[in-house]
């Protein structure tokens, strides 16, 4: 899956869960700026996990601040090491 596609999936999932338009969020976007709280963000991740059939453990989310960092983390789960 390309990064652009992954970003697209993130935007649509986050928009749906937070009930706001996040379709123009870029990879440089700071998660704290998106106006979604930590519970909503966990739900976004849970939804990505199901849609992409990956598992992103909670303790690896510590310190994730930007959309890019989050997508990079998800990406490592997509590609078998």
């Amino acid at each position, binding site marked *: 899956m390309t990064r652009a596609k992954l970003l697209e999936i993130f935007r649509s999932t986050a928009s749906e869960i937070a009930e706001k338009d996040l379709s123009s969020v870029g990879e440089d976007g*700071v*998660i*704290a*700026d998106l*106006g*979604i*709280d*930590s*519970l909503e*963000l*966990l*739900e976004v*991740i*849970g*939804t990505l*996990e*199901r849609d992409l059939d990956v*598992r992103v*453990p*909670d*303790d690896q*989310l*510590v*310190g*994730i*601040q930007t959309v890019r960092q989050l997508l990079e983390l998800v990406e490592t789960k997509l590609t078998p090491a």
Partner: protein
Amino acid sequence: MGLEHATTIVEALAALPRGEARGYTFRGVDGSERYYCFEAVEREARQRAARYANAGLNPGDRVALVVADPAEFVLSFLGAVIGGFVPVPIYPRASFKARNAYVDTVGHIARAAGARALLTMEATLAVLEPVTAAPDGPEKVLVLERFLEGEAPTFEPPEIAPDDPCFLQFTSGSTSMPKGVVVTHRNLVQNARDFLGPHGLDRRPEDVGLSWLPLYHDMGLIGFMLGTLVCDIPTYFVPTEAFARRPGMWLELISEKRATITFAPNFGYALATKRARDRDLAGLDLSCVRIAGCGAEPINPDVMRAFADRFRPAGFDPGALLPCYGMAEATLAITFTKHGGGFQTDRVDASQLRRRRATPAGPDADGTVELVSCGSPFPSTSLSIVDGQGRACGERQVGEVVVRGPGVTPGYFNNPEATEAAFRDGTLCTGDLGYVADGQLYICGRQKDLIIIRGANLHPQDIEWSVAEVPGVRRDNVVAFSSLIDGEEQLVIAAEGNSKDAPELRKSVATRVAERHSLKVAHVAVVRLGSLPKTSSGKVQRRRTRELFEDGQLEEHGE
């Protein structure tokens, strides 16, 4: 000894039925299940008690528990209790919270508790390093994976008395000065018998509990763990994280496991309703649910109604909804509505309510508030409403809720000032504002400045300090408060600033709060310099600011 005669959690554990039939099931984040019958829970906890003693702990020593896995948390908690050590549950996850802010919080709690040891797991050890390595950090750091290695030594647990502290519950106070409620065995056993007895949930032999509530918080820890031990209720534990990632899982598991008792704060019911799609409903059978309790934050009648309507086709009985009221300072529960009766509401005039009168209003009248009844106190407990001079208020007169009863705890650990402020001769001044009508308690505000968002207690000062660091905000001229917006308690920040900076400030303040506290700000009011109400000594007045905001009188800069 029969379970009904147990006077401590340790006696209850020993008196629970033996054999495989009844116990706890822990669901993992991966969907796996671990089952421990009550006998196995006790056996495993006894071994952990021995391991703590072997690590050099003495009875009475506090042990900070930063353990995310629910099964490991429960067994380690009970092990400490059996050994006469005092567990101190601490929020185990730092995800998305600025790492430093999280570690500071853990450090403050460990210090306030005077924790001699800290137990955690490999996965969290690195994050906690600043706490464990600090010169004034806990003397012993126990890593669960190593803690459990090898045979447990033999150990003769000490005698535990009913008035001994069972654990410390840290839910209130500011981040930098957290307050730990001392909860005794007697508090727990009596409160559990109240809220699970005939005037509470009226526990039945066939009951099955199901909870995703965090175990470091009183509603999950006492409501579903310690209470179910005192009253023998098989219980299914779901990690909070699993619910957060997929809220639909809550009701699916209830349906699958045929659970009869569940609880959640208001937001849980709102989220479950919002996320349920028609095709999800088809597979659900919620006819098993006898009790769907709601507490820990203000209850929105529209949320209760929407939940009842949405899930009635799936067999949900609206009579199962059970609003209640309580707080950690009173162990857990203070008032319950009658089980099976559903929720009742009272519609009152909003402007009269601000003048501390709950005047009934018609459903179509303008400017009304609909409040959900929290029920009546247990027979063991007396509740009254008092005015500012401590005089008893009459029917439908708003005042502070004060409580006396076996659940009222001895106070805050090692903090006589805070204890004196809230506890007077065994009477707890809750700081909540409410009124009684027809024997039913209605909560309509808070005297203290506490902010409660999604069941979590927040101290405004912590948020104000973070906002004060935002460039362009006038230091010491920031107020954080909560207001009911769309029926939900939501966070509002009022800050003084220049009009030209206002649009930027609205954004940067919200970002700062999100970064530091993982909280969403419903509204940032940037107001004219000098316009926030202050005391004669120049301190901002939070309550007055909130009143101005709610009356539309804050002098906000335009868009």
